[in-house]
């Protein structure tokens, strides 16, 4: 066993091992192209080492020439992969220079295979025996090819390219990598040029590229080991941070969750899984996880999830789940989508909080508000009771008188059947009229939750006007509504909006009474103010609002009336805000008050 064989075999082995390591890294992380290029260059270096060994033991000039020809292939692969490795690893280097070197090396390869014996020699006359490290090796005797200038040029370009990339990387603060890679590659290039010259002059048996490549391999191995140390450190830190995170999450009762969109797996931390009584190690599919969600919320949650994946907004939802104890729990969840370069969703990650207690309070508050609204509605209706009784007694009186007349007509000989028939028709009509008066008020006296629908304002105002008709007559005021034709519908609850209008008009009537003289007119103006809102203004010619009270007008229990409760406007404000609208008050320039309400327009119902 000779030293040459041992050294070159070791060089080949080291290079190929390193190539294998990096190719494995690349297979795991396909977008880390640096590893692929380094692996190709190391592989090429390994092959070159073996080719050199064969070269030094060549027996004939023809054999030497042929081996050297194939060595050009591996050399080209090595140079090109080093060029692109530098670009990937240092994230520097001029792209045109990289392509120029790549093109030049391919051109040399084409020349290499079209010339005989290869691109380095024009002719190899003979082989002479050289003694090196105690071994007799073959060294070529011949004349160098004129095309070798191209090989030198590519080496010079590589030199420039490496220098440039190294300086650029240095400037960007990557000094260690720049120094290590730059200097090892530079040294290699210079040595390769010298050795190749010595080989052509027959002083060396081969270009010894395998040896030249070794420092580069060691430099890279050093880099790799640094990476390993760092990742080890990072994983230790990660473990600590995970522990801290889970401690914080548990202390705050914060559920952490992830939905792996690609693999369709849902992971939750122990807080999240304990909440629903699932075991932490289990990773159910999304559908299996959704089975734990309340059936009424399930479809909505699924739709929201898919909407989040398609859209660009963060995920946000509130839903009910069956808890570990079988009781219903309200969960609020927020999350963000992680995507690849093609915007394909990979992962949805977020936190969840148990908001059952908050929801319960909200529900109770809502019930109280609902009751208060009803009480206020009944009290507002109470103000109308006199007018309403009057309105009801009109048809009832007519029915009574008609029936009495009918009885008398029947007693006549012969009875006037025509008249009797008319009487019955009139009785029917008045019966319907009385029923209408009752129906109009009945709905306002019912308990109900907010039920949103698209409402035409004209119709809403007419309904309230019908309710107030008699009251307006008695108090000798007129109600007028002004709105553009075909005004967009608003989104609202009919009964609650009627209540608000009723409150405002009754207030206006009181303000008119307090003024004693002047025009007694209440006007309702409606118009669209922007894309999403419609404004409704109730104006009167009454006494106006005391400027001192204006800021507190909507506060509860504030009243200007001797027999008022002071909840009418407060309730109105609550109702309007529950609609996503606004309410405010002002005084008209020409006297009287104006209450302005903004309500959202009704949109086509879209899937949530």
């Amino acid at each position: 066993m000779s030293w040459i064989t041992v050294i070159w075999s070791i060089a080949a082995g080291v290079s190929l091992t390193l190539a294998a390591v990096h190719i494995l890294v690349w297979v795991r992380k396909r977008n880390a192209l640096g590893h692929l290029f380094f692996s190709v260059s190391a592989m090429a270096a390994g092959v070159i080492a073996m080719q050199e060994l064969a070269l030094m033991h060549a027996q004939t000039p023809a054999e030497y020439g042929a081996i050297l020809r194939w060595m050009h292939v591996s050399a080209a692969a090595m140079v090109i992969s080093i060029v692109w490795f530098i670009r990937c690893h240092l994230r520097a280097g001029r792209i045109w220079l990289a392509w120029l070197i790549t093109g030049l090396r391919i051109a040399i390869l084409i020349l290499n295979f079209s010339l005989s014996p290869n691109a380095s020699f024009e002719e190899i006359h003979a082989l002479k025996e050289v003694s090196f490290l105690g071994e007799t090796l073959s060294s070529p005797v011949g004349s160098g090819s004129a095309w070798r200038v191209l090989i030198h040029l590519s080496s010079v370009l590589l030199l420039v390219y490496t220098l440039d990339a190294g300086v650029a990387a240095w400037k960007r603060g990557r000094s260690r990598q720049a120094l290590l890679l730059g200097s090892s590659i530079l040294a290699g290039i210079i040595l390769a040029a010298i050795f190749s010259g010595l080989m052509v002059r027959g002083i060396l048996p081969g270009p010894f590229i395998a040896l030249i490549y070794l420092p580069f391999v060691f430099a890279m191995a050093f880099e790799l080991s640094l990476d390993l140390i760092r990742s080890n450190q990072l994983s230790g830190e990660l473990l600590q941070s995970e522990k801290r995170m889970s401690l914080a999450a548990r202390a705050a009762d914060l559920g952490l969750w992830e939905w792996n969109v690609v693999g369709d797996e849902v992971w939750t931390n122990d807080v999240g899984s304990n909440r629903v009584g699932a075991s932490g190690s289990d990773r159910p599919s999304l559908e299996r996880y959704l089975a734990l969600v309340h059936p009424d919320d399930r479809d909505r949650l699924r739709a929201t999830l898919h909407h989040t994946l398609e859209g660009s907004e963060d995920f946000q939802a509130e839903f009910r789940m069956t808890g570990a104890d079988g009781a219903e729990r309200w969960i609020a969840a927020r999350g963000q989508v992680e995507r690849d370069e093609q915007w394909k969703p990979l992962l949805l990650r977020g936190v969840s909080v148990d908001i059952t207690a908050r929801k319960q309070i909200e529900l109770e508050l809502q019930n109280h508000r609902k009751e208060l609204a009803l009480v206020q509605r009944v009290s507002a209706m109470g103000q109308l009771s006199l007018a309403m009784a009057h309105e009801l007694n009109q048809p009832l009186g007519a029915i009574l008188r008609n029936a009495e007349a009918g009885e008398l007509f029947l007693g006549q000989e012969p009875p006037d059947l025509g008249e009797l028939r008319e009487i019955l028709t009139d009785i029917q009509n008045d019966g319907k009229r009385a029923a209408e008066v009752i129906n109009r008020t009945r709905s306002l006296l019912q308990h109900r939750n907010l039920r949103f629908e698209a409402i035409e304002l004209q119709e809403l105002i007419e309904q309230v006007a019908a309710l107030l008709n008699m009251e307006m007559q008695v108090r000798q005021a007129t109600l007028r509504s002004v709105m553009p034709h075909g005004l967009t519908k608003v989104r609202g609850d009919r009964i609650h909006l009627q209540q608000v209008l009723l409150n405002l008009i009754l207030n206006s009537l009181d303000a008119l009474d307090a003024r004693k003289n002047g025009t007694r007119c209440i006007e309702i103006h409606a118009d669209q103010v922007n894309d999403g809102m419609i404004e409704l203004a109730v104006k009167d010619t009454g006494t106006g609002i005391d400027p001192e009270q204006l800021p507190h007008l909507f506060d509860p229990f504030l009243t200007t009336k001797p027999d008022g409760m002071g909840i009418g406007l407060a309730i109105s404000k609550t109702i309007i805000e529950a609609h996503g609208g606004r309410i405010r008050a002002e005084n008209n320039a020409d006297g009287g008050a104006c209450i302005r309400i903004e309500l959202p327009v009704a949109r086509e119902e879209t899937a949530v």
Partner: protein
Amino acid sequence: MSKPGQKVFIVDDDASFLKGIERLLRSSGYATECFGSASEFLARRTHGAAGCVLADLRMPGMDGMALQATLAQSADPLPVVFLTGHGDVPTGVEAMRRGAEDFLVKTAPKELLLAAIERALARDARENTARTRRRQLQSHFEKLTPREHQVLSQVMLGRRNKQIATDMGIDERSVKRHRTNLMRKLEVTSVAELVQLAIEAGLRAAG
């Protein structure tokens, strides 16, 4: 049952109730006439017509109370019976104080309603007779000469012919002649009768 020539004038803005009550009164034997508003009634009514008014208290425009006030100022007021959808006590009291015959809700029992109308018609008949008589007497008194008027007022003060003659500066025979003439014109035979008539006609002693 109304006497011939008496009519119930019904004033109500509610057409349906108007029709119903008209039927009831008609079938109960009353002559009726309907009006949709107070102003319509005031514009269209025949002056001197006998009967009573049945009016809704709450009406747009001129309401029942205003109608009553306007009627009261005319030469031939009619008794008014008020109807209302819903009776509120203060308004009822006010209406009665101003001389309304009655104040009823629209759903009041038929008997109450008809009784109120009967009372109103009777009152109208009474007031009408009194009015006719007063007018008759007034036309009698209008035939007297100024001298006869002077003598009459002195007689009503209970003065003797001699005193009257002295006061007026004429002789006693002339006084006697004036007295005979005026008693003939007024178709009375005694002084007692004459004084009663003068009071009935609304003349005052000093007049």
